[in-house]
């Protein structure tokens, strides 16, 4: 095996819809080492879940199609593998847990049977052997009275417990890689920490690598060794976790980090947002997808920048032409922001006038700057 457990190379996944093809993942590359914890971050709709499903080849048919790229797992390309081989990998070598544990467990099968199913398929255990191991797994994930709970049904557990069951199910056959798609989003805050701790602990004990998909930067900070920032189906920046928090070099990452409210911020200061909205993935504009919202954007950004290493650190890569640490660029960005704010005020004022004059009820979006940046 090469250096990496999993290598995603230029992955492209599109969805066929009536209006055309949605480019959900449009050239994503990253890698995961054995035992490493990688965080896949981005806002809703940026393609992180689709990336995960592509790795597992669980895309919804017939709409989803693999349009290019390769995914090397232990040096074998998952995308060109026959389905029967892939089935052995699913659950056996790569496990996956999903966001909503309520709907992700079969309501008419006992928890024990659902866990044993994976054990019998991959490890070829007998019924008793599978049951015994299932009990010990439930124990490990922290479910009390495991030997009784093994014959309970999913609806008899609470949300956090159900997620623990999912984790037990995914890790039952000791996979090398765990893909966790927003495992804590549907849970209470208090339970979130417990589940994350659990994932951390179990994966550390078994040496399982983790791809943690989330939109929550807090989760990323505590749980990952490396971060991959995605936007509109492309990778914007990737770096070790500490590095990316200390030294973000992509305007989008900057925006993400700035938008997290701080406890020590001045009170009644306006919350910082990234203006605008994500692009239409049916007809994405050429070039960098973040360009319409980026304060640093220049004419050159109409060509997509490649993911290149930052000077001084091979681990840190960004896909951007601009050096955001350069003061002149920052000044430019500041002037840009002010100009935008001014024109936004003007547009709002003009709109207010027209509505009071004519009393019309035209459906115009709340956010007048949509009109400027859409395209």
């Amino acid at each position, binding site marked *: 095996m090469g250096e990496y457990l999993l290598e995603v190379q230029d992955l492209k996944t599109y969805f066929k819809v009536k209006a055309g093809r949605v480019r959900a993942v449009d050239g994503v590359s990253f890698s995961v080492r054995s035992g490493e914890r990688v965080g896949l971050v981005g806002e809703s709709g940026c393609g992180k879940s689709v990336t995960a499903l592509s790795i597992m080849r669980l895309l919804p048919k017939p709409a989803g199609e693999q349009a290019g790229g390769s995914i090397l797992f232990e040096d074998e390309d998952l995308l060109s593998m026959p389905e029967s081989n892939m089935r052995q990998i699913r659950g056996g070598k790569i496990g996956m847990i999903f966001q909503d544990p309520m709907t992700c467990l079969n309501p008419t099968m006992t928890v024990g049977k659902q866990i044993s199913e994976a054990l019998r398929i991959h490890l070829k255990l007998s019924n008793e052997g599978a049951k015994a191991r299932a009990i010990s797994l439930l124990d490990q994930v922290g479910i009390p009275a495991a030997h009784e709970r093994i014959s309970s049904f999913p609806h008899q557990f609470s949300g956090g417990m159900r997620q623990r069951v999912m984790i037990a199910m995914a890790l039952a056959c000791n996979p090398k890689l765990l893909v966790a798609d927003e495992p804590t989003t549907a849970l209470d805050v208090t339970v979130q920490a417990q589940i994350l701790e659990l994932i951390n602990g179990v994966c550390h004990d078994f040496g399982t690598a983790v791809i943690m998909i989330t939109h929550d930067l807090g989760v990323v900070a505590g749980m990952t060794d490396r971060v991959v920032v995605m936007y509109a189906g492309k990778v914007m920046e990737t770096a070790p976790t500490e590095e990316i928090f200390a030294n973000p070099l992509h305007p989008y990452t900057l925006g993400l980090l700035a938008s997290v409210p701080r406890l020590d911020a001045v009170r009644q200061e306006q919350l910082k947002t990234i203006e605008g909205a994500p692009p239409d993935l049916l007809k994405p504009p050429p070039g960098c997808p973040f360009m319409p919202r980026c304060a640093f954007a220049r*004419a050159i*950004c109409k060509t997509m920048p490649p993911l290149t290493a930052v000077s001084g650190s091979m681990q840190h890569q960004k896909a951007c032409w601009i050096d955001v640490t350069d003061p002149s660029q920052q000044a430019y960005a500041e002037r*840009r922001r002010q100009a935008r704010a001014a024109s936004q005020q003007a547009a709002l004022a003009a709109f207010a006038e027209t509505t009071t004059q004519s009393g019309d009820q035209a*459906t115009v979006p709340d956010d007048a700057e949509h*009109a*400027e940046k859409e*395209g």
Partner: protein
Amino acid sequence: MDVSEQLSLSSFDEEIEPFLAETSELVQKRRSQGRIIFDRFMRNYTAVGGAAFLILLFIFCFVGPYIWHVNPNTVNVLHVKETLANPSLTHPFGTDDVGRDQLARAMAGGQVSLIVGLLSMLIGIGIGTLIGALAGFYGGWIDNVLMRITDVVLAVPLYLLLFVLSAAFSDGKPQTVILIIAFFSWTYAARLIRGEFLALKEREFVMAARTIGANNFRLMFRHILPNAAGPIIVNATLLVGANIITESVLSYFGFGVQPPNASWGTMIATGDSFFDVDPWLVFISGLLIFATVLSFNLMGDGLRDALDPYMTER
């Protein structure tokens, strides 16, 4: 020229807001709700086909006699060769054992079958709506009593009771048949509407109407009922088809419409005895019944899909 050079060469003024020119059509054209439903219905080809067939059928049965001037009741026993005849130019649907023209009878019978189906549906839906609305809206003991009555009527298998009732009361006239069939048509509608009312009466618009002083009657029929209209319409359409079938069954067994009144069911009854000699008699009326009911079913399903707010794009 590398990146940094490019950047330093351009000045602030040169940089334009990207993609300003392409603003999308933000003000959407709103279609009215009726239009949306109509469009969805029209996309369903089988449903449209069914509706088209029904329109043609109505024209055939009600306008047809003005074009095809043959009396359905003229008996022609003298010329035996012309009885039990196969379709020909003079008699496009053939004749029966006493020489009556089947095309004219199909039209006359169609009138009866269709009217029986429609009127019994209307009465049945009317009663069912009333009962369901009262039960669902008031709840409590009214609901209990009304639902018990519904259960009683539903408990006995339909045809048994129908046969008994029509054996007793039927005098062969379509009017009685309408009433008898309507007597059983209301149960499903009542249940359905009661369910809708139970759900809808908790909604805010009911509370709002109450606060401006609407009395119960107004609430039920001006506010809640229009919102429950969708399932009612679907049920009504499907019910017509079911009632036509019921009528034909009754008439075939001699309990429903009886000679001299004609309906498609009686035509089949007459033709049944001559099935091996002249199958056309049964086939024609049978196919007419089948096609009519099929069209009502297709239309009903199309309406259900068109009215369903949660239907995903197929």
